C-alpha cells in the first residue's frame, strides 16, 4: 500500500525536520522554569565525583557542578563561575539565578544547577544571557531553604559558548 509507505517515511522524517530546526539551540530559561525543583539541591549529587572543569575554563573559574558538589569546601571563598541568567518572575533587581544544565544521559534528562547571584548591576542582564560572575561563595536562606549564592563584585557578559560546551557533563 503506497499511502502506508509514505506515511511511515513521513513519521520517521519528523525527528529529522526537528533536528534541523533546533540546530545550534540549547536548553535555556524556559526549560529551567519547567525543570527547577524548589529545593536546595535539585538532585542527589553527593557521592558522585564530577569530571574536572570543562576545557573552556581557566584555573580560576569553577564550573557550577564543582561549586555545587563541593559547596562546603568553597564556602566563604572567592569563586568565579560562568552560566546563564534567569530572572524569572522575581522583582528583586539586585539578584538573579545563575544556571547551567547538567547532562547525565541526554538532553531529555538534563537537570539545572542553580546559584543565586547578588549584585548591584543584576538588572542589566536578561534571561539566557551568558555571564561570568566573580565574588564570594556562601549560603543564604531563601523562603526557608538554604541555597548557594555568590555575592558578586563583578558580573560581565561573555559570548555564548559553542553548543557542545553549553552543558556540563557527569
Amino acid at each position, binding site marked *: *500500500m503506497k*499511502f*502506508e*509507505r509514505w*506515511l*511511515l517515511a*513521513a*513519521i*520517521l522524517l*519528523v*525527528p529529522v*525536520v*526537528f*533536528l534541523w*530546526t*533546533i540546530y545550534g*539551540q*540549547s*536548553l*535555556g*530559561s*524556559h*526549560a529551567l*522554569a*519547567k*525543570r*527547577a*525543583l*524548589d529545593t536546595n539541591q535539585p*538532585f*542527589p549529587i553527593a*557521592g558522585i565525583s564530577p569530571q574536572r572543569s570543562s576545557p573552556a575554563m581557566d584555573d580560576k573559574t569553577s564550573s557550577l557542578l564543582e561549586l555545587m558538589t563541593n559547596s562546603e569546601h568553597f564556602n566563604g571563598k572567592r569563586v568565579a563561575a560562568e552560566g546563564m541568567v534567569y530572572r524569572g518572575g522575581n522583582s528583586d533587581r539586585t539578584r538573579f539565578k545563575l544556571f547551567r544544565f547538567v547532562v*547525565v*544521559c*541526554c*538532553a*531529555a*534528562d538534563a*537537570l539545572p544547577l542553580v546559584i543565586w547571584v547578588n549584585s548591584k548591576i543584576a538588572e542589566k542582564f536578561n534571561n539566557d544571557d551568558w555571564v561570568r560572575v566573580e565574588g564570594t561563595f556562601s549560603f543564604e536562606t531563601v523562603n526557608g531553604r538554604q541555597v548557594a549564592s555568590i555575592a558578586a563584585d563583578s558580573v560581565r557578559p561573555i559570548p555564548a559558548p559553542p553548543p557542545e560546551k553549553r552543558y556540563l557533563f557527569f
Partner: protein
Amino acid sequence: MLILLFLYFKYDKLLNMNSPTSNGDISKNGHDYRQSSRSSRYAQLLFVLFALSLVFFFRYTPQFHTLGIIFVSIVLEALPFMLLGTLIGGFIEVFIPREKVTRWLPEGRWWTVFIGAGIGVLFPVCECAIVPVVRKLLQKGVPFSAAIAFLLGGPIVNPLVAASTAVAYFADWSIVIQRMVFGYCIAVGVGLLMGLLFTKAKAVHNEVSCEPDLKPAPEIPETGKPAAWAEKIGLAVNHAAGDFLDIGRFLVIGAFCAAVVQTLVPRQEFVAVMGTPGISILIMMLLAVLLLPLFLISPGNPGTF
C-alpha cells in the same frame, strides 16, 4: 489529544502485533509490512501534520526549542537500542526453529511463565529492544503468558540492569535485590494473570502462529536444503530492517508525546503530588504511559524526577 493518539497507537499495536500476513503486503525481501487500519492511518497522518505545523508556526519560540531538543534526544538515544532489538528479532526469526521453541516452552503449561520472566538473566534485552523480540517469539510459538512475563521481566531481571541500578544508587545492594525480586514477581504475576484472562488467539489479533501453514515464508528455500549461512544472515537483517521501520514510528510518536509533557508540565508539580503515597502511585502509572520512552532509555538514572 496527543495522549489519546498515543494510547490509540499502543492499543492498536498490541492488537495487531502478530498479524503481519493478515492484511499486510509482502515485499520482495520477505518482510511483512503491516498495514494499519484506516483510522490508525488517519491518526498517524494527523500526528505528522500536527508536528509539522508546530515547526511551521512556532519554530522561533523557546518552547519549541525545548520541545525539539528533548524530542530529538529521546529518539536519538533510543534508536540504537531499538535497532539492536530488531536485529535480535530478525535472527530469532531466521535461526531458531519453531519446533525447538515449542519443546522448550510448550503451549498451555503454567510453569513456562517462571522461565519467561527469567529469560533476561541469560538474555539481557532493554525495554526499547524487547518489543520486536517478544513479537518474534510470539510468532515462533512461545506461550502467551510466558511472552508477557518476558516482556515485563526481561528488561528488569537481567545482569545489566542490576549493574546500572547499583551504580545509580551508589552500590546500595538492598535496592538492587528488591528491584530484581519484585520485578521477577510482578512479571510472573502479570504473566499468570494474563494467561488466565486471555487466550493467545484472543489477545493477539489474527493469530498466525497457531496455524503455521498460514504464514507464507518465501525466505525458506523449497528444495528442503538449509539455506547457506550468508543467505540466512541476509534474511535476518532484512527482517530486522522491516521491523525497525515498522516499530520506529511508534518510537517517534511516543518520544514526541514525552517531549510535549516535559515541555508543558513543570516538574515541581510532580513533586507536589508525590507527597501523597496513594496518589503518587497512580500518578507514576499515568506517567509510565505518558513518559514511557523516557523511562525506557534511562534505567540507570534515578534523578529524572
